[in-house]
């Protein structure tokens, strides 16, 4: 391994990063997740921690760009250079840039994460069968609204699981339109456009107006890439058109004819000879996770290694089950030392036989004179009647939008049957019943009347589940209950778990830590809490903010 001259490194271990923009190739949630995992590669073996910022200047500013992208080292189109990063320091130092003329994937072809439908955001399953026909890409067949969709299992006919594929008709990203879809046709500088365009931009990104007149409304967003979209050339984002004519011959698939570099290309109209519209055909792409992990190594102070199997070797190589090479570990630990302190508890269901004390716990009350801002972590947080409730050691505080937090109030006064320490709570919006969980027990309050304690096994949770760490209300009297890496869906009308659960939290709610200790719904967002921080997820399951509970929610 090598460090940079002078052993450039961060002088603090709590390193911050900020994602400035996204590639059209991957859903933002997948991108967030890839970067988070790439940082975890390094935080697993050092005392470093990485916190994402959503505004301001972070130590490591991450961006996608093409060719000349604002620094002295332009990218070179598809393939070749993939990314670069600067060693630690002020300004551009520490920043990481990714060439958006590449196809960014997880390394094994375009990853298509679905939206809406009934597959809870699962990835498309290619190929899939629909009405006896096999599909290797998203399709608009069977729909009249032209929205591309895919099956998330091998056979749509059997499983009926589907979701919609990225499309500008469904959403945009970036820009100033809050992810609203394109409106076609739209007017830009007096011209009418029926599809996304790169006109008016020098960076090659495709955009559209999200109203019918950009000149009047100035509302725009960037168009997500369809998985069939070509890269580079002069038709970025368009799909191949087969058959197409090239030098008088007809082509039904991508070809390397006409090129001396052997790369596959296609025309995006039916006649290249007359239209000269073309692009490179989509391929396996490059793993954003692997490239990011390499670049973050630079951003932390590692130079290129001479060890071919090391992550810091300069050439790209796809590895399915990645682990850091000893050379990388030695390099980063030379700069920052080894990881100290206890290792984080392993993710997954708690399998020990130790039960969390509930009714027998002697509460350790916070000093009622103390402000809620003195509390570092809360036992549970939930919204009751549009008021956030923060529970801790037998007490709770109430916080409305405008007021300062009120309290503390004794839990025993409001809900006398409850133990001092509760793990999770939620209000059923339909019946206004309150559900509380502590250890392996739960209580249901209807006004002052209480049912319980009852065992959470009665709800259908397995005995290995020793706590319900979070709860999120959904439509139709459904509630998601979280424990470890899994979650279940409870029907509160029958108090039974729905079939098909548990599901892995990570696959549906990507980009949140696996070791959260509280999950709750507030103003339509799902909050995943770990320590003093929360990860906020919007209704499209994108983490759109990470912040402090104390400052952002309690306004301390």
């Amino acid at each position, binding site marked *: 391994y090598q460090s940079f001259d002078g052993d450039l490194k961060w002088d603090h271990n709590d390193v911050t990063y900020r994602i400035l923009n996204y590639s059209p190739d991957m859903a933002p949630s997948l991108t967030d997740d890839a970067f988070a995992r790439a940082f975890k590669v390094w935080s697993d073996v050092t005392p470093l921690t990485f916190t994402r910022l959503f505004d301001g200047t972070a130590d490591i500013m991450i961006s996608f760009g093409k060719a000349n992208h604002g620094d002295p080292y332009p990218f070179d189109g598809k393939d070749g*250079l993939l990314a*670069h990063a600067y060693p630690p320091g002020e300004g551009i130092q520490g920043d990481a840039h990714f060439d958006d003329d590449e196809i960014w994937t997880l390394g094994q072809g375009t990853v298509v994460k679905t939206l809406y439908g009934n597959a809870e955001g699962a990835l498309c399953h290619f190929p899939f069968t629909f009405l006896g026909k096999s599909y290797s890409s998203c399709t608009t067949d069977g729909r009249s609204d032209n929205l591309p969709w895919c099956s998330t299992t091998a056979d749509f006919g059997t499983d009926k699981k589907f979701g919609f594929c990225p499309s500008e008709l469904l959403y945009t990203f970036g820009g100033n339109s809050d992810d609203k879809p394109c409106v076609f046709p739209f007017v830009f500088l007096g011209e009418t456009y029926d599809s996304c365009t790169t006109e008016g931009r020098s960076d090659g990104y495709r955009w559209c107006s999200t109203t019918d007149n950009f000149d009047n409304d100035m509302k725009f967003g960037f168009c997500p890439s369809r998985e069939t979209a070509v890269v580079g050339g002069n038709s970025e984002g368009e799909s191949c058109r087969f058959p197409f004519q090239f030098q008088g011959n007809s082509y039904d698939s991508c070809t390397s004819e006409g090129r001396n570099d052997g790369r596959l290309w296609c025309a995006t109209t039916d006649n290249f000879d007359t239209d000269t519209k073309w692009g490179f055909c989509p391929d396996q792409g490059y793993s954003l996770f692997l490239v990011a992990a390499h670049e973050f190594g630079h951003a932390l102070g590692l130079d290129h290694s001479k060890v071919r199997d090391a992550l810091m070797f300069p050439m790209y190589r796809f590895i399915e089950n990645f682990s850091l090479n000893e050379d990388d570990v030695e390099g980063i630990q030379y700069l920052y030392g080894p990881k100290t302190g206890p290792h984080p508890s392993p993710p997954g269901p708690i399998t020990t036989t130790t039960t969390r004390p509930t009714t027998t716990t002697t509460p350790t009350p916070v000093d009622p004179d103390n402000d809620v801002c003195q509390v570092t972590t809360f036992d549970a947080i939930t919204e009751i009647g549009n008021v956030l409730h923060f529970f801790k050691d037998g007490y709770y505080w109430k916080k409305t939008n405008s007021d300062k937090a009120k309290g503390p109030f004794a839990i025993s006064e409001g809900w006398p049957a409850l133990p001092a320490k509760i793990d999770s709570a939620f209000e059923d919006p339909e019946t206004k019943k309150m559900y509380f969980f502590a250890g392996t027990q739960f209580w249901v309050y209807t006004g002052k009347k209480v049912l319980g304690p009852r065992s959470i096994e009665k709800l259908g949770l397995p005995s290995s589940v020793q706590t319900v760490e979070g709860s999120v209300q959904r439509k139709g009297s459904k509630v998601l209950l979280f424990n470890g890496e899994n979650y279940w869906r409870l029907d509160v009308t029958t108090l039974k778990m729905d079939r098909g659960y548990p599901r892995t939290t990570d696959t549906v709610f990507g980009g949140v830590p696996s070791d959260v200790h509280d999950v709750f719904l507030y103003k339509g967002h799902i909050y995943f809490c770990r320590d003093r921080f929360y990860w906020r997820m919007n209704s499209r399951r994108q983490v759109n903010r990470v912040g402090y509970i104390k400052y952002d929610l309690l306004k301390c």
Partner: protein
Amino acid sequence: FSLPIKSVFVTFPGDVIKNMTDVEMADKYLKRFGYLETLQRSGFQSLVSTSKALKTLQKRMGLEETGLLDKTTLDTMKRPRCGVPDIRS
């Protein structure tokens, strides 16, 4: 029949990659990633420097150290990689 198709290379509009000879490409690569500049600074003639630079690159990439722009070396240069230089001046 079975006449081989005679390939005709065309200029693709908007193609970022410009047609370069292998030597031009190698020269650019060696300069970009720090191999050539370092050696030229030590006062060698350009031809000698290129050979030395190639050997340095070949050693670093685990290739046979021929000092020649052979196919293996060219293929290595065409592989996708990080844009950070391997050798700093």
